[in-house]
């Protein structure tokens, strides 16, 4: 049966891929079998365009207990018999179509990835990219996405402790919603997503199966939105209350030895969860679709296998333990049904009653073709990178103050309070540093320890220079953690790109991953989990290359943590790190985009300096030298100083502000490897000695004083004015 192009398009498989299937299988696949291939060989599940590139990323390390790809999420040892389990995932396409439910089910999906491993979820973070809020459709997407995250996360009782939001035109048609979840488990209670042990039973738990979300993996996440058609029915609807019950019941099971494995049902539903866990166990599975409880009549085996109905889990119960497992779910009033079993023949066999409707080797389903491509640097990039600062006039000192206020009110820099106050960030009694600082900090009860979490990724840098953008995403995330006093441990990443079948997008992807890999090796932060979201394009227009780095760090003593706000009147303020202002540091900055409408010029970073700076800052916090630490990022030194002022309503005075080169670069240039710190005058000598030992600059900027931000000769603003611009900047646009 030669298969039509329409059918292949529906499941996003190419003609050559179809021929490969026929060749390997030795026959034509039937409709159900083709559906299984479509899902598992999709970019979303099979990573066929990214696998070869992702191999560059370091994945192992002393603390890594479960590496990338081995399980649903990566696991990092934090000592005391405890481990953190974390992952970030995109829900971009569903959120573009139905923002509330798209974002809500994104949270639901990532939370399942964590508790499925036996870890209690204790933190959520979100990284959002949207079009400008001047457009009413973007405002609709924004409030829908934030509402969905709040609606789902708040009901689960998991604190949402941070994230970031970045606005640019290219996200108008393709908003990005990346959700990160982190859980804590006793190392001995970790659960694998493995279907092992012939005769173990597959139990489907939670919601009934409906037609919602059909083709989510292949149709939505693995192609571009060229065609205008109604896709809303491919977005699922979330039920956070049901998920809460699943969390409690599954964590109860994780403490028993009654189960061989657990796996959530996410993209490609039962297909991917059953077959991927069989692949991990090295055996086969047999599923009878008639035993799957349904919420709709007349569903075909194809629909049952590919449904993406939410809040479902696959539990692999050991022989003889079925009744005990069922009793746990019964107590939580959750439905659980045996739908099949683990076999030893390596086949994925789907039955409808007695009739076999699909019978394919598990190996074949889980080994999609891997594509590698040779591409050259697009000439367009050369133009973007070559930028002569002299082509724009310098900022006049008279305008410095008003420009600072303008930057502070720009939605990319302004406080995100109007967003994070909609998320419960304190449930759990662990939140030590609340959202709004460089990173969120949670204490780990029963120990002296704490963990810090952040997400980062500046798409503008990546657009101009994908390699350096990748390096900086990692370096800045690590710097954020260091500013709280945490030692960076590991990364989870989400790579949001356009269509990888296009040369320039593939180049961006390759370079960006190479940059991240380099920084991860230098900073010793392996990538333990992640997700790739490709085909983020509409009408041929791709988004900026947007890697999002989620990073976790460890504080050995959580009592010694730092936040970004100045703390005491009379403290001295220093700039640690790169003290030489280079005029070109204004390249790709928020200032350049906002004031001149230009997105050009290479960002710059010296990883050696970065490493020394981070070690120095960390040591200073551990020795109780610092009272605050704040990373210089978007908006440069001017914005960093202003943010440190408004956090606790304290002023800053520099009576001797000298500028060597251009004023715009000095105030708003975005040179990396800089941290603004404050400390008691009596500790200044200690900081000086530390900085000398780590061979980094420590330049005294001024003192924490009064209620005004004064850089004599340039800026003189009241903290109230600054606060109004920064706290209200984003809120005013909604």
């Amino acid at each position, binding site marked *: 049966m030669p298969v039509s192009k329409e059918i292949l398009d529906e499941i996003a498989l190419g003609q050559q891929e179809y021929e490969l299937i026929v060749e390997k299988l030795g026959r034509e696949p039937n409709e159900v079998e083709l559906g299984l291939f479509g899902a598992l060989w999709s970019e979303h599940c099979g990573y066929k365009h990214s696998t070869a590139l992702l191999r560059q990323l370091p994945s192992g390390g002393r603390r890594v207990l479960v590496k990338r790809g081995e399980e649903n999420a990566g696991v990092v040892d934090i000592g005391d018999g405890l481990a953190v389990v974390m992952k970030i995932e995109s829900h971009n396409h569903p959120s573009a179509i139905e923002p509330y439910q798209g974002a809500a089910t994104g949270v639901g999906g990532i939370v399942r990835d964590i508790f499925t491993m036996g870890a209690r979820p204790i933190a959520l973070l979100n990284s959002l990219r949207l079009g400008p809020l001047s457009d009413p459709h973007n405002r609709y997407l924004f409030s829908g996405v934030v509402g969905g995250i*709040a*609606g789902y996360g*708040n*009901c*689960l*009782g998991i604190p949402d402790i941070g994230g970031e939001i970045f606005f640019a035109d290219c996200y108008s048609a393709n908003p990005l919603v990346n959700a990160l979840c982190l859980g804590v488990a006793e190392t001995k209670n970790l659960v694998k997503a493995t279907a092992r042990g012939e005769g173990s039973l597959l139990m489907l738990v939670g919601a009934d199966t409906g037609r919602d979300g059909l083709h989510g993996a292949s149709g939505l996440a693995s192609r571009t939105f060229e065609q205008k058609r109604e896709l809303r029915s491919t977005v699922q609807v979330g*039920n*956070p*209350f*049901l998920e*809460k*019950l699943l969390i*409690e019941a599954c964590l109860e099971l994780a403490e028993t030895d009654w189960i061989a494995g657990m796996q959530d049902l996410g993209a490609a539903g039962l297909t991917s969860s059953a077959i991927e866990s069989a692949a991990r166990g090295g055996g086969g599975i047999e599923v009878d679709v008639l035993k799957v409880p349904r919420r709709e009549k007349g569903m075909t085996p194809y629909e049952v296998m590919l449904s993406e109905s939410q809040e479902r889990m696959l539990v692999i119960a050991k022989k003889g333990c079925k009744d005990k497992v069922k009793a746990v779910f019964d107590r*939580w*009033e959750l439905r659980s049904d045996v739908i099949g079993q683990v076999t030893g023949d390596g086949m994925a066999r789907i039955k409808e009653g007695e009739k076999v409707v699909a019978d394919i080797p598990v190996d074949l389903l889980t080994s999609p073709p891997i594509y590698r491509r040779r591409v050259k640097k697009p000439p367009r990039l050369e133009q973007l990178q070559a930028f002569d600062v002299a082509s724009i006039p310098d900022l006049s000192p008279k305008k410095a103050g008003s420009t600072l206020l303008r930057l502070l009110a720009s939605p990319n820099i302004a406080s995100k309070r109007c967003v*994070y*106050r*909609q*998320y*419960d*960030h*304190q*449930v*759990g*009694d662990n*939140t*030590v540093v*609340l959202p709004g600082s460089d990173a969120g900090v949670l*204490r780990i*009860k029963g120990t002296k320890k704490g963990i810090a979490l952040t997400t980062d990724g500046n798409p503008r840098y990546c657009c101009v220079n994908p390699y350096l953008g990748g390096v900086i995403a990692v370096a800045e995330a690590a710097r954020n953690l260091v500013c709280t006093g945490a030692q960076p441990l590991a990364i989870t990443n989400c790579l949001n790109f356009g269509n990888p079948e296009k040369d320039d997008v593939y180049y961006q992807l390759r370079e960006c991953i190479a940059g991240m890999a380099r920084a991860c090796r230098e900073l010793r932060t392996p990538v333990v989990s992640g997700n790739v979201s490709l085909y983020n394009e509409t009408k041929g227009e791709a988004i900026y290359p947007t890697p999002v780095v989620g990073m976790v760090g460890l504080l050995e003593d*959580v*009592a010694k943590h730092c936040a970004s706000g100045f703390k005491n009147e009379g403290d001295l303020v220093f700039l640690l790190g790169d003290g030489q202002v280079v005029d070109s540091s204004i390249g790709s900055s928020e200032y350049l985009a906002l004031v001149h409408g230009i997105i050009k010029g290479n960002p710059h970073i010296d990883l050696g300096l970065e490493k020394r700076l981070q070690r120095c800052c960390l040591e200073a916090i551990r020795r109780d030298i610092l009272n605050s630490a704040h990373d210089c990022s978007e908006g440069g030194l001017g914005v960093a100083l202003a943010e440190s002022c408004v956090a606790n309503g304290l002023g800053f005075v520099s009576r001797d502000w000298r500028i060597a080169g251009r004023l715009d670069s000095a105030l708003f240039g975005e040179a990396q490897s800089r941290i603004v710190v404050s400390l008691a005058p009596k500790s200044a000598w200690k900081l000086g000695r530390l900085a000398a030992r780590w061979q980094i600059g420590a330049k005294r900027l001024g003192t924490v004083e009064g209620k005004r931000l004064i850089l004599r000769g340039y800026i003189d603003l009241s903290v109230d004015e600054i606060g109004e611009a920064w706290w209200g900047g984003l809120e005013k646009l909604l």
Partner: protein
Amino acid sequence: MPPYLFKVVSVKFGIVVFPGTWSDRDCYYSLNDVLRQQVDCIWHKETDLSQYDCIILPGGFSYGDYLRPGAIARFSPVMASVEHFAARGKLVVGICNGFQVLCEAGLLPGALLRSEHLEYRCQWVQLKVENDSSPFTRRCQEKQVLRIPISHYEGRYYADDATLAQLEADGQVAFRYSTPTGDITDAANPNGSLHNIAGIISRRGNVLGMMPHPERACEPILGSSDGNLIWESIIAGL
């Protein structure tokens, strides 16, 4: 030595757990780990509360609360027992969702509506103690201002004029949203509650409902330990 010399002054708290409750763990932590009291968690299907001195209905989304917060929870088996418990004059505390459940069950007057700004809000607020002689506030100073966070969507206290007048006349308003210096202003009101009401006490004085979460303000590292004053008041009185 005779055993009575070793008698620990410890109150037995019972924390009711509905399927979608999540503040149970935080209440347990603040009472058991911080204040070293005896605490049990009580599954909502249980009905025997005879061994407890104080029952807590914690925050969360008892049954998902898609219909109206607390509307289903009030029919849980445990709730009939909580009513009897309260009728005998024993202490009941409802926090956030627990406050909503108590209003739904008629154990406290009024209702909690969607916040004025139609958003979920999680933030620190200041509470002025309006009645420092109740069993829940006797450890507070007169007009003391407590720093305790809120986290809710439906927290706007509403009651008809007659009920409000009676609450005020009888000193049943326990806490009001205020500025850090104790002024009762609109700006200090995070959700549009009438009379800035954040918590009320039943007429008999043994049932407290409050929207803010005292269990989250239990240690200095979390930003405040003012919430402990409420638990300490209860312990001191029993």
